[in-house]
């Protein structure tokens, strides 16, 4: 389709041509012409949110669970500024999002007009790129460029700001194929010499580890498949960041659990003691490295990343390979196979026996209870009762998020949506709706804390209106659990403002929103409550009253190296053995 049309129609046509089936948005004065076009078509479904931040998180959930870019449409001024947290979240976690914002007409820009904000100025540091379109003839091409930039290379959020007069004016539509998608063509193939060098290191390594991240999931299901092939063929242990869970199956033979501040003991000790660390699409985040100076001191480090600026940013590596991790894995496997599939079998066997010793520590052990629901127990039961199902999990941010990462197992990529880099409380509920919209028949659960959940609870209205049967699994400790934990550990148990004195009745809240809810406070009733939540045909809020002062362990205290992890009190008594001094 081409020819002359209004800017507003062009927006809808461009989205259609980009294969967009869903837009999350909220109307307002500066986008009314586009909403008028949306009204007059049926190809693109519009999900009306309750707050623009929710729209962006929904688009993130949609993108993360499908691999396609998420699309948001909001108005100028407050519509755009409300989207800023979501944009920053997507930038930190490399999620492809295209946000379209309305703007005051071009002749009013700079006059402090009603609902005017310098949207491209405000969002410049929180987008991968953004555009202000001042000419209707350039609108379609700019939208196509936006999709290109959002999805190519390291994915990320982009924003197109469209003044209202540009929407009304008529111009020439340009189809995606005819659009100049700029010079932006990031390198995807890794340098084969460097890949061969890495294979040589792999052949000799006595204590190798595959440290995988969200980049594998962003690269697509093929990369996850190649990772599995690599791990299973070489026998190397696999750990992952929070963002990479599911790339290698949690049930896989070589899985040693998540690493990082609340990662597993065996994963962190293996990172600390390895002699070859292969970072595949992760970025040495500070939650992962702990104290930089003591990070994995005796290892050679290789880093595969599509973003050249990630390499040597935080941790100096011996071998940096710029490329898409899927392409690099493919070449890596080819080279390794052609050289005779060599590994240091003797070294590996010893390495695994050390890892098994660390595993034997059972670092996730916690003190159970017959009277109070332990949050860990709640997640164990949730895992047991939902495991075989077509399940997607989102989370909010805090203790519950870490427990979910520890106790839920993911065997496939794109099944786990969480705010990693930015740590955005209020992410999970809207993200769950975005996932559900993309997968209407799946079981979508948001593992939440009550404080995070309240931050975007208005989106329950969206879930009810669009019949998104999302399950809100709230671990309610009436505390800001992670803040409280840090205050206990670091601030002399002075619990400054880390509890809520007047929480809503979540069951009544569910009813008020027109869905259903239940409260459970006893371990013996938990299974029935979870089953009732799963089986309810519609959105459901399960208010799980859990132990109020449970701490999340294991934990690498801030600024400490991996081998100074704190373990939960249930598992550390008299058990300090391997891997250096473990602080109790």
């Amino acid at each position: 389709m081409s020819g002359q049309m209004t800017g507003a129609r062009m927006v809808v046509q461009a989205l259609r041509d980009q294969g967009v089936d869903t837009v999350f948005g909220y109307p307002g004065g500066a986008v009314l012409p586009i909403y008028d076009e949306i009204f007059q078509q049926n190809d693109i479904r519009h999900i009306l949110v309750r707050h623009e931040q929710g729209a962006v998180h929904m688009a993130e959930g949609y993108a993360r669970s499908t691999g396609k870019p998420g699309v948001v449409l909001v108005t100028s001024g407050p519509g755009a500024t409300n989207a800023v947290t979501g944009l920053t979240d997507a930038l930190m976690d490399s999620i492809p999002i295209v946000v379209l914002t309305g703007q005051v007409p071009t002749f009013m820009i700079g006059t402090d007009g009603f609902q005017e904000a310098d949207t491209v100025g405000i969002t410049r540091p929180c987008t991968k790129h953004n555009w202000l379109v001042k000419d209707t003839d350039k609108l379609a091409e700019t939208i196509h460029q936006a999709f290109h930039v959002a999805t190519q290379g390291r994915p990320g959020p982009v924003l197109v700001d469209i003044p209202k007069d540009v929407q009304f004016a008529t111009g020439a539509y340009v189809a995606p194929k005819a659009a100049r998608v700029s010079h932006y063509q990031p390198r995807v193939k890794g340098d084969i010499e460097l890949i061969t060098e890495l294979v040589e290191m792999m052949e000799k390594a006595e204590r190798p580890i595959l440290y995988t991240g969200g980049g594998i999931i962003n690269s697509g299901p093929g990369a996850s498949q190649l990772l599995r092939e690599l791990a299973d063929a070489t026998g190397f242990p696999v750990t992952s960041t929070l963002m990479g869970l599911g790339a290698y199956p949690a049930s896989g033979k070589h899985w040693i659990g998540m690493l990082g501040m609340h990662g597993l003991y065996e994963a962190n000790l293996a990172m600390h003691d390895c002699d070859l660390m292969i970072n595949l699409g992760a970025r040495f985040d500070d939650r992962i490295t702990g104290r930089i100076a003591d990070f994995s001191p005796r290892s050679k480090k290789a880093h595969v990343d599509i973003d050249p600026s990630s390499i040597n940013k935080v941790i100096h590596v011996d071998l940096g390979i710029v490329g898409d991790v899927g392409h690099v894995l493919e070449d890596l496997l080819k080279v390794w196979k052609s050289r005779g599939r060599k590994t240091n079998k003797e070294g590996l066997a010893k390495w695994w026996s050390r890892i098994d010793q660390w595993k034997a520590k059972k670092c996730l052990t916690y003190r159970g209870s017959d009277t109070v629901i332990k949050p860990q127990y709640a997640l164990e039961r949730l895992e047991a009762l939902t495991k075989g199902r077509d399940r997607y999990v989102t989370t909010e941010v805090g203790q519950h998020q870490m427990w979910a990462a520890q106790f839920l197992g993911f065997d496939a990529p794109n099944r786990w949506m969480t705010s990693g880099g930015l740590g955005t409380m209020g992410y999970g509920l809207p993200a769950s709706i975005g996932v559900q919209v993309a997968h209407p028949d799946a079981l979508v659960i948001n593992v939440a804390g009550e404080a995070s959940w309240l931050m975007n609870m208005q989106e329950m209205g969206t879930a009810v209106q669009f019949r998104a049967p999302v399950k809100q699994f709230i671990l309610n400790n009436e505390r800001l659990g992670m803040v409280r934990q840090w205050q206990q550990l670091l601030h002399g148990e002075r619990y400054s403002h880390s509890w809520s004195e007047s929480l809503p009745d979540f069951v009544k809240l569910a009813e008020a929103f027109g869905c259903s809810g239940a409260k459970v406070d006893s371990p013996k009733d938990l299974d029935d409550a979870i089953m009732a939540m799963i089986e309810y045909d519609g959105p459901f809020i399960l208010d799980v009253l859990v132990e109020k002062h449970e701490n999340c362990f294991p934990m690498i205290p801030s600024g400490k190296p991996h081998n100074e992890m704190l373990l939960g009190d249930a598992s550390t008594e008299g058990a300090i053995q391997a891997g250096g001094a473990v602080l109790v």
Partner: protein
Amino acid sequence: MSALKIKKGSTSHSAYELRDPNAEVIETHTLAVLVDNEAGVLARVIGLFSGRGYNIESLTVAEVDHKGHRSRITVVTRGTPGVIEQIKAQLGRLVPVHEVHDLTVEGPSVERELSLFKVVGTGEKRIEALRLAEIFRANVVDSTLESFVFEITGTPEKIDAFADLMRPLGLADVARTGVAALARGA
């Protein structure tokens, strides 16, 4: 973007680490950045420097290819080798950036800066200013009975030296363009 090859063995750097500022050598590098001359591109580059805490010693920008709408940004920056590598990589991933060249490491280059000096005075001082200007090959581009405006082109060091000499002779105002630089040879 061949200029962006990640150098093996460059130093580690983290914003979260408290480092001894003297532990690593601070180097000055001149970077040439070729960008699309689109709205906001300068803000993007400057925002990158301020947002990530990098230094800008000097910055010049102008369109150098009117047909292709390309601008050349010349930026002089200071940092440890690791920080310099980061700056180049961060610049390289901006969407409107086509090329990043580190003129300091890519081989010999020439650097020039143009500046205007207003010197106010009469009598001996005025004559001395004019004499020194001749030695420095500065041109007089404006003159009144008690002032000169000199135009001088040269390396930043030469301009600094000229400024030092003019100060006691009635230096009233200075305008400097910042550094423009090109690699030597073909």
